């Protein structure tokens, strides 16, 4: 290559470099224009449609535009021949491309042509010929779009507020689902659980997980959490395996969050401890005993704290007994008498803890701050009454004391069942009746129906709301049929009546402000009626 060729190539390279810079800048500008355009569109959409990540997506669009612009600019860089042709298009009339292609040719006309090209190239300022400065119109458009985007980002709208709320809910749901997932993982790894127990627990947890995943409002989330907490708590009550129970309790506590009072936690802990002590026998290993001792020690400390706060001397006493029993269990010197004493102490502590909890709830209800709590408070109080009555009757019978404990369970969703269990045991039904005022009433009606094998509706009167209108035990115009009583009117099957009751009850509680836990209790009650 001679000097002429080298010089021409140098020019072509310079032109190419300049054009490459120009192409990158130009495409960058186009990319930014497109990016800001997309950002404006996204921002406009987010004004009307809840879209939490709108700003992030808009920024991503801008960034994508910049990156795409740069990449396209780099890809669109001209090669040497294209660069030469681009310069030729500026009035060079294909001189440069011809000279570039004549590289290596030494004939006279080729040399003359190359010299002519070089002479003209020297008169050219490539920077002026290919300015890097973008067109003012395009720049103005880009800055305009950027300004519009920024402006729209700060415009407050209801959709944006909704987006914030929805995102917060989604985040909470994610957290709660993670807790459930964690519980699922732990339950799956528990070898001490039988396959059936494991499947049962996992089914509950999977169902809870799905329930959580389906919620889309804060209210629904709270209700779902409450429902799950109650269900999981109930399941924990029924679970004999300590580790699984603890896990379920832990999940239920986390679902209840701040709603879970210290006294309730203590009550549940004491209840679990009672169960552990009942299950403890000669086959119980040292490690298990040690774990129970630790649990007892921990609960004793909690009981002591609560006793200090409330000045409850019974609780104080129970805490001391539990501490002593825990110490003895650790040392392996726990006698049968000590064990019984500890059980009694735990029962007393539990009673005190529940009384404290009831008092709290009553206070809430009386203050009228929370209608639901008020309702809870009444129920709890009734439940407590039932338990107290039961305890009073059964006196020192530990087993019955346990039943009394079950009666106390009437506070939760399982109360109905427990109450029924008490009825079956031939108790006076105070526990059940105390738990649910309507229960005794309904129970009477049911008994009548069973004796007579038939329920009829006097005069078949329905209210507008579809409820039965009639008086319970009203025998006016009644007919005796198949050894039972029958009334004039159309006979209706027992299951249908219960179905109607159930349906009405379901509709009522679902349309009410009752806590979901209470709703579940009611639903569970009618479900049991249906199953009987």
């Amino acid at each position, binding site marked *: 290559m001679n000097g002429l060729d080298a010089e021409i190539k140098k020019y072509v390279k310079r032109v190419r470099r300049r054009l490459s810079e120009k192409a990158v800048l130009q495409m960058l500008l186009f990319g930014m224009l497109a990016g800001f355009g997309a950002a404006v569109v996204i921002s406009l959409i987010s004004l009307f449609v809840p879209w939490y990540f709108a700003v992030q997506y808009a920024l991503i669009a801008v960034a994508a535009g910049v990156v795409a612009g740069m990449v396209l600019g780099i890809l669109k860089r001209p090669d040497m021949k294209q660069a030469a042709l681009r310069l030729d298009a500026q009035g060079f009339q294909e*001189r440069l491309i011809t000279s570039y*292609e*004549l590289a290596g*040719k030494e*004939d006279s*006309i080729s040399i003359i042509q190359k010299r002519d090209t070089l002479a003209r190239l020297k008169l050219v300022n490539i920077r002026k010929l290919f300015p890097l400065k973008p067109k003012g119109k395009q720049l103005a458009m880009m800055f305009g779009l950027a300004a519009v985007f920024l402006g729209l980002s700060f415009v407050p709208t209801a959709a944006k507020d909704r987006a914030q709320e929805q995102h917060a809910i989604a985040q909470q749901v994610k957290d709660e689902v993670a807790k459930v997932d964690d519980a699922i993982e732990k339950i799956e790894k528990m070898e001490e659980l039988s396959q059936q127990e494991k499947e049962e627990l996992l089914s509950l947890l999977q169902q809870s997980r799905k329930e959580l995943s389906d919620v889309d409002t804060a209210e629904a989330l709270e209700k779902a959490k409450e429902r799950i907490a109650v269900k999981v708590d109930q399941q924990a009550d029924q679970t004999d395996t300590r580790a699984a129970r603890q896990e379920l309790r832990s999940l239920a506590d986390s679902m209840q969050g701040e709603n879970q009072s210290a006294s309730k936690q203590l009550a549940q802990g004491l209840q679990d401890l009672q169960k552990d002590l009942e299950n403890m026998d000669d086959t119980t290993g040292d490690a298990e005993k040690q774990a129970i001792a630790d649990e007892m020690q921990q609960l004793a400390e909690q009981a002591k704290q609560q006793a200090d706060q409330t000045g409850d001397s019974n609780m104080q006493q129970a805490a001391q007994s539990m501490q002593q029993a825990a110490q003895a269990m650790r040392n392996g010197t726990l006698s049968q008498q000590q064990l019984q004493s500890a059980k009694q102490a735990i029962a007393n502590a539990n009673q005190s803890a529940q009384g404290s909890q009831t008092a709290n709830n009553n206070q809430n209800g009386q203050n009228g701050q929370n209608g639901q709590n008020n309702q809870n408070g009444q129920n709890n109080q009734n439940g407590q009454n039932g338990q107290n009555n039961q305890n009073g009757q059964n006196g020192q019978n530990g087993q019955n004391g346990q039943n009394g404990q079950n009666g106390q369970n009437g506070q939760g969703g399982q109360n109905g069942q427990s109450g029924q269990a008490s009825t079956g045991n031939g108790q006076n039904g105070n526990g059940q009746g105390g738990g649910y005022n309507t229960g005794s009433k309904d129970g009477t009606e049911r008994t009548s129906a069973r004796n007579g094998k038939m329920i009829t509706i006097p005069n078949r009167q329905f209210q507008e709301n579809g409820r039965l209108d009639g008086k319970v035990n009203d025998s006016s115009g009644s007919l005796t049929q198949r050894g039972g009583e029958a009334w004039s009117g159309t006979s209706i099957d027992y299951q249908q009546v219960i179905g109607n009751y159930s349906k009405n009850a379901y509709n009522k509680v679902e349309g009410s402000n009752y806590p979901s836990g209470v709703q579940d209790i009611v639903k569970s009650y009618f479900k049991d009626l249906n199953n009987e």
Partner: protein
Amino acid sequence: MVQNEQEMQQIIYQIQSCEEEIGKAIIGQKAIIRQMLIAILTDGNVLLEGVPGLGKTQMVKAVSKAMNLAFSRIQFTPDLMPADVTGTNLIIREENQNKFQFEPGPVFSNIVLADEINRATPKTQSALLEAMQEKTVTVGKQTYLLPKPFMVLATQNPIENEGTYPLPEAQLDRFLFKLNVRFPSKEELKEIVNLTVNREEAVMNPVMTAEDILRIRQVIYDMPIADAVMDYAMNLVYNTHPEVADAPEVTKKYVTNGASPRAAQAIIKTAKARALMENRYNVSFEDIQYVAFPVLRHRIICNFEAISDGVTPDKIIAQLLKQQQ
């Protein structure tokens, strides 16, 4: 071959001088003059089309004078015989012996003006074919070389069709250029009248010789052309063919037959000549665009739809050039 830029500049100066000299005798028609010069410098024949009285004959005379070339004119008529064009063997008596002697016809000249070529019979028109393409004339068994440079400048009248024999496509293809001589503008007409009626005839000086022309032709042949420009010209010719798959819509709609490979050759060599006349040593896209019209307009055969729509070959060429921008 030229050795340096000075020689090249001298050639360019000669061409420009020739243009100026012809311009003394011909008012206006600068594009026609330039295109005629391009044809002469690239060894081509030209078909001039225009109504009578536009100075076509005068133009050819002026070119021959400026280039100091022998000029002959043949008025084509229906009774014109081939021998009237090429020449014939005469029986002469010399030294008491009769023998044949070839008497060259008017074709034996540097520039032959075939006036109203479409009035002669195809047989006579064909007599020019060999001369135009091979630069030779065959009479009997003897072939005679025509003088160099040699070119035919034929004229035809586009408005009188009765008693004419339109040139067949094959013969048209042998003309490098077809030039449409337009009617002069009002100012040009005034100048023409002043020049021919009121004043004495302009004195023209020869500025070029036959040798110069041959030398310039060599320079033109050596003129470099970039691949991109060559491709541009080839695409242009290719796009005139309606049968190719990716032919432009205008071609498919209006063209029956596209330009021949001879057209591609003509475009390249005339574009080179034009570049030189523009004081440039390489061919540009603009040169291609400039020569595309005279090279292609008689080689693109339009269909009936084009005629009915008033679409001329020039319009098609303009459209093709536009699409290739």
